[in-house]
């Protein structure tokens, strides 16, 4: 067990690598109840259009989800989150555990200025299980009566609510592993029963360790590691989430427009034996960079990393990383490394 954002969480339930493979090849589940659900009532759409760097105008159909950064005025990343459009008078945010209190205080301050009628409701009565893997959906359908009819036609990055013997379940076809599956938001009082029902349909419990290797293979950032308040999203591989297409006044837009972009977040695949780790120095043709997340990829059987490098470094370049007193060769690649069980880079 380890501390994660103030929660005691299991690193693994036995073998981190077995849990990783279970998600890539079958179905695994993560207790992600530490993530905070925050519902916004009133007129959330104009408020979120100002508060979020991605554009909620893309959310036209109820149930649709969008990934976005919450930026500060200076463009730093306060948090990354998923926003769901439930109804015109209710949007749902799912934010990181360690940043939740800070986010909620920030939203209250913004709302006081721009949307005094908005009600911000943290949902401490809800818990969350992510079920991920090529067989995740069918195993959820067997475990939760009523779920198949409600979610069979659900498209990726969409969610639906339905009634089950475990109470109201909100199932989103989203995740943090690069595999298909659901993130299930369920009543906290029935979450243990849902977990046990999923176990009986053969879903493997997986810990934070596997969650980290899976998300890194999938090229997904971890808040606090690959991005934070001190770094622009444009230097964190998140330019695709900062939507400037419309004339839209959102927090951080002005600052980002003025900042030079000197670095980019790239993938590394180690060519030598060893393991890349966060904060190791990377030497490139354009100067030095730094690894933000590194690990051993159980799928590729090689070490991989995300690294913030000088912007001019091209994909395919061989760079050198200082690893425990040695200089090891790594290839710069474009993440993701692995998606839906397939290795995408060399």
């Amino acid at each position, binding site marked *: 067990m380890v501390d994660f954002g103030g929660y005691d969480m299991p690193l*693994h339930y036995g073998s981190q690598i077995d849990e990783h493979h279970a998600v890539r090849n079958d179905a695994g589940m993560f207790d992600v109840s530490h993530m905070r659900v925050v519902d916004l009532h009133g007129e959330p759409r104009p408020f979120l259009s100002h508060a979020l760097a991605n554009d909620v105008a893309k959310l036209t159909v109820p149930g649709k989800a969008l990934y976005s950064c919450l930026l500060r005025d200076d463009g730093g990343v306060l948090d990354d989150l998923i926003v769901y459009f439930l109804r015109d008078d209710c949007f749902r945010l799912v934010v990181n555990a360690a940043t939740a209190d800070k986010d909620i205080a920030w939203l209250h301050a913004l709302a006081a200025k721009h949307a005094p009628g908005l009600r911000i409701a943290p949902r401490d009565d809800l818990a969350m299980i992510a079920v991920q893997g090529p067989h995740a959906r069918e195993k959820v359908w067997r475990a939760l009566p009523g779920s198949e009819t409600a979610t069979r036609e659900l498209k990726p990055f969409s969610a639906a609510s339905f009634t089950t013997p475990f109470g109201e379940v909100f199932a989103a076809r989203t995740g943090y592993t690069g595999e298909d599956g659901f993130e299930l938001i369920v009543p906290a009082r029935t979450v243990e029963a849902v977990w046990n029902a999923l176990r009986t349909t053969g879903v493997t419990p997986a810990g934070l360790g596997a969650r980290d290797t899976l998300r890194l293979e999938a090229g997904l950032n971890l808040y606090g590691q690959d991005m934070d308040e001190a770094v622009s999203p444009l230097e964190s591989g998140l330019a695709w989430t900062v939507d400037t297409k419309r004339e839209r006044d959102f927090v951080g837009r002005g600052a980002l427009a003025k900042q030079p972009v000197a670095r980019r977040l790239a993938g590394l695949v180690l060519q030598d034996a060893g*393991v890349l780790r966060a904060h190791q120095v990377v030497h490139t043709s354009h100067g030095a960079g730094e690894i933000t997340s590194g690990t051993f990829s159980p799928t590729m059987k090689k070490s991989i990393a995300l690294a913030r490098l000088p912007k001019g470094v091209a994909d395919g370049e061989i760079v050198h990383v200082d690893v425990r007193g040695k200089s090891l060769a790594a290839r710069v690649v474009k993440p993701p490394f692995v998606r839906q069980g397939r290795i995408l880079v060399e």
Partner: protein
Amino acid sequence: MNVPTGLKYADTHEWLKREDDGTVTIGITDHAQNALGDLVYVELPAVGRKLAKGEACAVVESVKAASDVYAPIAGEVVAVNDKLSGSPEAVNEDAYAAWLFRLRPDDADALAGFMDAAAYSRFAAEP
């Protein structure tokens, strides 16, 4: 906790076994491999290298972290377990079969003072 009798144990979680030819085989304990988690990389010292007692001489890396392995006694490296470079998980499967390196000790009495199985079991169980 798997702590075989007949071996000696260091407080840095290595096990030591005296061989018939006077050399000493060294690995990490089952308790240590369990704490590290799945090993993915093992780096061993060069054969012929002379090690001081307490010198960092090998690295075991799990998915989550890299850890140094220290020479519990002074001596010269006479053999290393090359099989581990291709299958570091062997240490997780059987930490006492998957030895790391073998030393010819500088001091014939080098194993005196190390813990036996009962003492190490108590030591490793401490919070």
